[in-house]
């Protein structure tokens, strides 16, 4: 059979980054930003996220919270991402991002309110331009592209510093058209946007291998002509370096980037899920061997930056913080039911007055 002679047209490669190995030893010298303060701050925030998750799951079990998606095992990605952003940047998160939200200044009360079925939980006091967490898969990536357009537009019109939009997602989300469309447009329009994929190996019950036949998630960016990097997502330093580098380039108007952060979901998909139905206990045990919090702790102790005493103090402080947040959340007055009309439009259209009054009267009747 005739075989044509082919010439190499283009070739691509995907790099992988790690600073702390599975045992918590440095594999190379740490970047400058990773000061003792930064490292211990990240350690604190990862533990706080873990605590909030733990409480949230328990609250769900006792019926005080609705379905909740824990971040257990992915704390490094969220904390490193949230931490790398400047306050003026705009974060467009997916639903599994408690660590990142905390870094963005979203309060524990707001997080609990949101999952407790109170929409005021997405009315963030400290991240006024951030998008609310996105439940439909991958749609937030297009929102981030739109946000990035607006940020670049503002920068060009008013000469203000260029801000960056960051979207996060799981690896399952990269199967959707939105993901490709967002990367494609971001490449063409050179938008200041960074896509951070939490590759936690599972999309509910579908393993990564059944989600895509690509060797890496990062290489999906090649088709869009944008740079990509794969990082050890359980290494907070590696994620932080990758996000910071992408942000720096986006801020200098060098365009978008994709980061694939490899991690593992150590929890059920949500409180409504039972992961033991589809994934082996052995795999889970394995994954616990390289989880992000213990890895950082080992490193910190090796450097003399952490001790039993410090851990006891921190545990006490975090428990108090959590307790105070729980109390303040639980003592919050419920939102009036008429709020379902209050924010539907900027001003309630006249055609809805009657339904609004009907609800008010029903509430009145219920009270009498």
């Amino acid at each position, binding site marked *: 059979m005739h075989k044509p002679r082919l010439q190499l047209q283009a070739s691509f490669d995907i790099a992988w980054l790690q600073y702390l190995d599975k045992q918590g030893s440095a594999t190379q010298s740490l970047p400058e930003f990773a000061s003792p303060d930064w490292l211990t701050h990240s350690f604190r925030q990862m533990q706080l996220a873990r605590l909030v998750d733990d409480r949230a799951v328990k609250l769900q079990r006792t019926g005080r919270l609705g379905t909740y998606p824990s971040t257990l095992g992915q704390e490094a990605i969220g904390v490193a991402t949230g931490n790398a952003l400047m306050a003026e940047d705009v974060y467009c998160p997916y639903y599994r991002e408690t660590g990142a939200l905390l870094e963005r200044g979203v309060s524990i009360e707001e997080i609990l309110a949101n999952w407790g079925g109170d929409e005021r939980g997405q009315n963030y006091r400290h991240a006024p331009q951030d998008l609310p967490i996105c439940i439909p898969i991958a749609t937030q990536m297009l929102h981030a*592209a739109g946000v990035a357009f607006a940020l670049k537009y503002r920068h060009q019109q008013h000469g203000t510093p260029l801000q960056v939009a960051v979207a996060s997602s799981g690896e399952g989300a990269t199967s959707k058209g939105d993901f490709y469309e967002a990367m494609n447009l971001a490449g063409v329009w050179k938008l200041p946007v960074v896509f951070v994929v939490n590759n936690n190996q599972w999309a509910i019950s579908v393993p990564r291998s059944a989600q895509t036949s690509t060797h890496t998630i990062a290489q999906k960016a090649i088709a869009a002509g944008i740079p990509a990097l794969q990082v050890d997502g359980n290494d907070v330093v590696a994620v932080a370096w990758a996000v910071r580098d992408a942000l720096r380039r986006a801020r200098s108007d060098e365009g978008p980037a994709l980061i694939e952060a490899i991690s593992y979901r150590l929890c059920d998909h949500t409180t409504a899920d039972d992961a033991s139905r589809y994934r082996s206990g052995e795999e889970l045990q394995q994954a616990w061997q390289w989880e992000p919090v213990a890895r950082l702790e080992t490193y910190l102790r090796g450097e003399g930056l952490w001790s039993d005493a410090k851990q006891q103090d921190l545990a006490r402080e975090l428990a108090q913080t959590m307790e105070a947040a729980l109390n303040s959340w639980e003592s919050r007055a419920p939102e009036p039911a008429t709020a379902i009309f209050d924010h539907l439009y900027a001003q309630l259209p006249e055609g809805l007055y009657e339904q609004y009054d009907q609800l008010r009267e029903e509430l009145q009747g219920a009270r009498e």
Partner: protein
Amino acid sequence: MGESANSITLVEAVTQALAYELANDPQVVVFGQDIGANGGVFRATDGLQKRFGAERVLDTPLAENMIAGIAVGMATQGLRPVAEFQFMGFIYPGLDHILSHAARMRNRTRGRLSCPIVYRAPYGGGIHAPEHHSESTEAIFAHIPGLRVVVPSSPARAYGLLLAAIRDPDPVLFLEPKRIYRAVRQPVADDGEALPLDRAFVLREGGDLTLIAWGASVKETLAAAEQLSTEGIEAEVIDPATLKPLDIHSIIDSLEKTRRCVVVHEAARFGGLGAEIAAQIQEYAFDLLDAPVQRVTGYDTVMPYYQLEQVYLPGVERILAGARAALGYVREGGR
């Protein structure tokens, strides 16, 4: 800022409104497929890129879901995106973003963020277009809480309502009846005056019968009213213009005079807005009615290829038949 009242078509009125708002509000950006150098397939954005630059009038890659989605992101950051879908029949990939995000962002964040977006699309049949180019599925969108659905039926209303839609703090689906894009010319002053949303327009007064129609069907409906007038029957013609939220009060006011009503639309009948209007009329004005509300609509079929589209579209004869059914109805036996 020109205020001369040039005689223009409906599609030119769209261009004029876009240009006015681009010139006067730096937050407005216009984007879609082929809308730049090409000026849009119907020329609704003709000359805008040249005049306002490729940073504000942008050609996008071909992806409707993307067009709908980036508008959400832009709007949350204070821009006023005006996104064009080439045809209403291609909006469905974007429905996710319109329904799941644009229409709910304000409510979901309890007012912190909002989506002042205009999604524009040419819609409706009657221009000999290929399949999927003649859709009239406004009822799908009117069902979505938090969204406005606006349809102009004249150049002046296209200009004034589009300005209002762009300035509205909430998302608006602005459907342009392409069959009448160039059907009539009318002097429209380029004075930046918006027309009110959520308000019906009484296009013709009369005391014998109320005809309700929007978009391109207004043309045949007015023609039917003229025909009836030669027979001594004066029909009031109402164009709701904003289909959601609907100004039912203007319709009821009219029914106080006429007591009989026909709703005309080219969308399929089942679950169409005629059903909603008829339901509201019988809820609010049952005692006013001397006859059941008649619906003159497209059939519950797929919009046919253009050989048969005139069969599908409600024309003057069908409207007259609906009117005669409403006028001729006599309640039997009393109550």
